[in-house]
């Protein structure tokens, strides 16, 4: 038990609903085909849940949730997924992000397109979430101590 000055209402409810917001963000990423949404919006919702935890329990305790130092590397990883798939399709002789040219032999073009878009959306989502959290951390600059 750590000594803590924040109101229990905010801490308890914030930690209670943060997982649900994360799941909602993942849902938006995975269902970009059917409705509004996709990588960017889902990533923003994911970032919102991380920021909620940071606001509720303070900078120090939220390191257990999403580390400050993870922001930039995970953002780069997400961008790398996006560009990796794009460059692979270019290497196979097509345009950037021409999903039907992904190098899997026995999969139909429409399936390739579906999963290609999905993986790219996930990459964008991770990149957006991590970058937004990194921007928030950079803006707070360690000035906030809970």
């Amino acid at each position, binding site marked *: 038990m750590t000594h803590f000055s924040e109101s229990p209402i905010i801490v308890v409810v914030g930690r209670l609903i943060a997982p649900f917001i994360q799941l909602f963000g993942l849902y938006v990423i995975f269902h970009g085909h059917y409705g*509004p949404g996709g990588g960017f919006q889902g990533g923003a919702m994911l970032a919102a849940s991380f920021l*909620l935890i940071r*606001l509720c329990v303070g900078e120090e305790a939220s390191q257990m949730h999403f580390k400050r130092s993870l922001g930039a590397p995970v953002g780069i990883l997400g961008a790398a997924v996006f560009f990796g798939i794009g460059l692979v399709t270019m290497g196979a002789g097509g345009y950037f992000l021409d999903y039907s040219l992904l190098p899997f032999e026995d999969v139909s073009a429409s399936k390739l397109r579906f999963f290609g878009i999905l993986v790219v959306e996930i990459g964008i989502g991770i990149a957006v979430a991590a970058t937004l959290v990194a921007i928030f951390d950079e803006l707070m600059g360690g000035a906030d101590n809970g």
Partner: protein
Amino acid sequence: MQDVLIYITNLLAVIIIIPFYRVLKGPTVFDRVLGVGAIGTKTLVLICLVGFIYGRLEMFIDIALAYAVLNFISVLAIAKYFKSYRKGA
């Protein structure tokens, strides 16, 4: 039924304007934030009603949920900012 919903949506669009008085007039920053929060929660309902009228509720309800989440977090963030502002000053 559709007509009734359209009338209520128009009514809500008028209701949303009223808290703007608080946002513009103040007198304190917290009054302004309160007004913004009140407008946000009403917007959530308005989005749902518009989705109903267009018959695409499953799409608009996602937008409304995202809006509710962002509204809640923004109010918390502003409250947090003014709490720590005094500590620093």
